[in-house]
Each structure stands twice: as structure tokens, then as C-alpha cells.
């Protein structure tokens, strides 16, 4: 990942389209620019294309048309050996959590740091710190498969932020959480953002972005319907 720049955006999407076979248009002609250190929300109904957009940004899937650049790397042309380095700088909290049920909570969180070859002491310390922040310290040695969905969601979030990534992508991070835990999670994201991390949250939970100063992008049927940067609310049906 390149050093943070105020000039170049961390995410640059130009007229990206994603179609799933046979002809399901998930995203159509999306253009979007996200600056380093920004925190923003992606909203929309189920099936609007929020998850697909996050998958395209983290290089899990590729667009059929258009350009996607993350940290200056064109994901369509990125070399296979560069992709792991880029992914280590992206912390993604998946909607389906993607946890290993037969591993402990600590082991699941540690994975994100292990792939970046952090030393074991640093990993242990960071895991405990995150578990305390998310009120899960008592679940340190519990198997991930035995946790409730809300707890699993918090573990997935902890793993996403564990490696102190430059960009955090969170897909419905509060979908299974009560209001108190939602507040904890949002505080964690705010903390990360305050240290310069870009945070991109896909959600349909209005409560978490209502009243915030952050940009809100609304997706509808695979197109950007509205970009509200709280200063100037503009309809943005991109050409």
C-alpha cells in the first residue's frame, strides 16, 4: 500500500458494471471516489448491490466493465503476487462472517495478523485488546462455532480491524447486534477512522448513520441513487 495521499483517492471506481450469469445485473455503471481517511456509509435495500460493491473493492470479484482502483492499484490488472499485500491492508468484515467454526475466537482474530507475519506476542496483545473493546474477553478460548450470531459478528469485526488496515470494509456489521453492542462496534470504527483508516460500511440500518457527519451513498438496483455528503445533498445518477 502506498503512503496516504490527500490527492489520490484510496478507492476510485469508474463506470463499473457487474453481471452475474445468466443476466443478473448486480451493479451498473457505478462511479465512486473515496478519499484516504474518509468514513462513509453505503445503504440500500437488500439486493441493491452493496455486498457486490464491497466484494469488487476487496478483489474478491472482478467487474465485467469499468475500472476499480484501490490504493492506486488497478484490480483488473493487479499482479497475483501483489494481491496478498493489498488484501492485508484491507480489513473486511463479511456479512456471513467467514469464521472457522472449529477454531477459537482468539485464533480466528489472530489469522488476520498471522498472514502478515506479526510476532505472536503482538498478536496475543492485540487480540485481547480487541476482545475487551468488543466485550468478548470471556470468549477468548470459545470455539467460534459455539457463539451466537451477534458474538460471531463481533469476532468478524475484530478480525477485520486486527491488522490495523488502511481500509476497513464492513458488510452489515450491526445486522445481528442490539443497540448497546452496535454502539460499541461503531465506536471501534470511529476509533479506527480517527487514526486515519478509511472505513466503508454497507448497511441498511439507518440508526447508525443518521445524524453522523459522514457521507452516505445509496444504492438502488445496482445504481448509485444518491450521494449525501451532509454538506451538499445531491442526486448522483452517474452518466
Amino acid at each position, binding site marked *: 500500500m502506498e503512503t496516504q495521499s490527500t490527492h489520490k483517492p484510496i478507492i476510485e471506481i469508474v463506470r463499473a458494471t457487474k453481471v452475474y450469469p445468466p443476466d443478473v445485473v448486480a451493479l451498473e455503471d457505478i462511479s465512486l471516489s473515496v478519499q484516504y481517511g474518509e468514513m462513509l456509509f453505503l445503504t440500500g435495500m437488500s439486493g441493491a448491490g452493496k455486498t457486490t460493491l464491497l466484494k469488487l473493492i*476487496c478483489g*474478491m470479484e472482478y467487474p465485467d466493465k469499468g475500472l476499480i482502483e484501490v490504493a492506486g492499484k488497478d484490480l483488473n490488472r493487479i499482479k497475483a*503476487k501483489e*494481491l*496478498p*499485500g*493489498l*488484501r*492485508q*491492508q*484491507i480489513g*473486511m468484515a463479511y456479512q456471513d462472517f*467467514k469464521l*472457522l467454526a472449529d477454531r477459537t475466537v482468539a485464533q480466528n482474530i489472530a*489469522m*488476520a495478523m*498471522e*498472514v*502478515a*507475519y*506479526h*510476532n*505472536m506476542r503482538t498478536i496475543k496483545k492485540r487480540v485481547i485488546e480487541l476482545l475487551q473493546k468488543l466485550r468478548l474477553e470471556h470468549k477468548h478460548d470459545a470455539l467460534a462455532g459455539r457463539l451466537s450470531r451477534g458474538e460471531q459478528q463481533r469476532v468478524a469485526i475484530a*478480525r477485520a480491524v486486527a*491488522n490495523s488496515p488502511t481500509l476497513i470494509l464492513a458488510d452489515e456489521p450491526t445486522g445481528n447486534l442490539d443497540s448497546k453492542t452496535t454502539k460499541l462496534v461503531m465506536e471501534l470504527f470511529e476509533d479506527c477512522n480517527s487514526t486515519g483508516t478509511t472505513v466503508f460500511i454497507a448497511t441498511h440500518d439507518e440508526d447508525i448513520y443518521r445524524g453522523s457527519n459522514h457521507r452516505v451513498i445509496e444504492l438502488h438496483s445496482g445504481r448509485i441513487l444518491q450521494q449525501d455528503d451532509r454538506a451538499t445533498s445531491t442526486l448522483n445518477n452517474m452518466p
Partner: protein
Amino acid sequence: MKFINTIAVQTSRNLQKTWPTQVMTLLTVSLSVLIFSFFFLIYTNMIKTGERLGDDLRLTIYLEEEPVMEMQAQLVRKIINFSPVEEIRFTSRDDAYRRLAAQLGDNVDVLDDLDASFLPPSIEVYPKKNLSTLAQIQRFSEYLSTLPGAIKVQYGQEWVERFNYFTKLLQIIVLLSGFLLIMTTTFMVAYTIRLAVVARQAELEILRLLGATNNYIRTPFLIEGFLQGILGSSLGLLALFFLYRWIQLRFSGPGILQLVEFTFFSPAIIWIIIAASIALCIGGSFSSMRKFMRI
């Protein structure tokens, strides 16, 4: 250092999760190494024995009449012209009788009623060491039988032929067991690694999404292959060594083992077998991983 530590933790975690399959593969590798090295040990010892017996190889040409000096010189010339030899020794009827009498020792009296000239004169030819293959010996023997005055040529044909066929059979068994070793080692290890890859598909997918490099994913599997190779071959060779010691102790009395000087592998051969096993196991592991990496 961080890389080594992380990989060590990953490898031990993998081994803990898949130890039953790993143990089965380890035993298969050990057994394959044991079978191969057992036949290879016998083969190498037979070759050594053959070489030693070859040093003592002597072709005896029985003659009708004792050759005069001129004839002896002519025979020597003819023999040397066909093939260079270490030594040619003429034995007269009297010498042959004396030798037989000496061999009989206390039973020499059985010769009392016999004429001292009843044994034929002979020429003993000691071939050079390069004359070692059965075909060469046979050709030389056929030539010697055409020499003037020759009645018969003897060199323990039956024994040499049997020994030669036995060595050839062993050669085939060694080749087959070597092939077996290659197949079982490579395929068993590849199969084990493939099973591990399939069992850990979800984990590997998550690791990739978290930014794991190919080396991070591949190295623990290659280390597993390395461990299979080094432990499997060491166990196989250790079992062979105990078998060798047992045979030595049980059959240390007079018998075939006295004729054959049975020795274990030299350290160099042991290292070569271990290195080859490691290479095969890593190869098997690598082939499975390469398949996975393409996904």
C-alpha cells in the same frame, strides 16, 4: 524469523488436525523405503560378493597330452591374443596328482591303487577383472575349448550362471521396488496433502481473503512433505538395520552368510536414500499444492 515462527505454528496446527492421515502416510513411506532398501541391500551385497568371487575366477583347460615347452609358449600366445589374463599356470599330471594327494590329507590311501598319471594335465587361466560378465566368461571358455589338445574347460559354469541369474533377478526386484517406492511415496504424500487441502478448503479461502501469500499457504504443506520424507525414510532404514542385525545374529554360524560378507549401507548410501525420499515426498506435496494454486 517471524516467517519461520508463523510457519512453524501453522505446520504444527495442521499436523495436530490431520495426524491420523499423517501417521498412515508415514507408515506407508517407511514400508516402501524398507522394501526397497531391503532388496537394494541384498543386491549391493551380491554385487560385492560377485566381484570378490570374480577375483578368484579360474578357468581350467584339461589337455589330452602334456604340452612341450614350445607348445606351452604357443598356447600362452593364443590365450593372451584372445584376452589379456592375470596369470597362466601349467599343471602336469604329476603336479595334479600331488595336489590331489595333498587335498585328501589323511585319506590319501585311496590313491594307492591308482596310477600316478591318471589325472590329465591342465592349464589354469586367471582372467583379468574386466572379464566379469557371464557372456564374456562363456565366450572366453568357448575359445579356450578350441585350443589344440583341449578336452574340456571348467570354471564352475553352473554356479557362475546361477549366481549371475540371481543377481539379474535381484536387479529387477530392486528396480520394481524402487518404482514401488517412487509411486507409493509420491502418490501417498500427494493424496494426503490433497485430502488436507480439501479438508481445509474453507480455511485456505479465508486465508487468501485475509492476504495470505502463496508461500504462507504452501510452505506448511511442503514442510509436511519434508517431514514425511525424512521420518518415513529414517524409520524404514532403522527397521532395516534391526532386521540386518537380527539376521547377522541368527545366521552368524557356518552357512551362506559366511560365503557372503554381508555389510550394511555406507553412510553415503543412507543419506542418498533419505534425500531421495525427502525429494519424492516434497515433490508429491508440491504437485498437490500446484493444483490448488491454480484454483
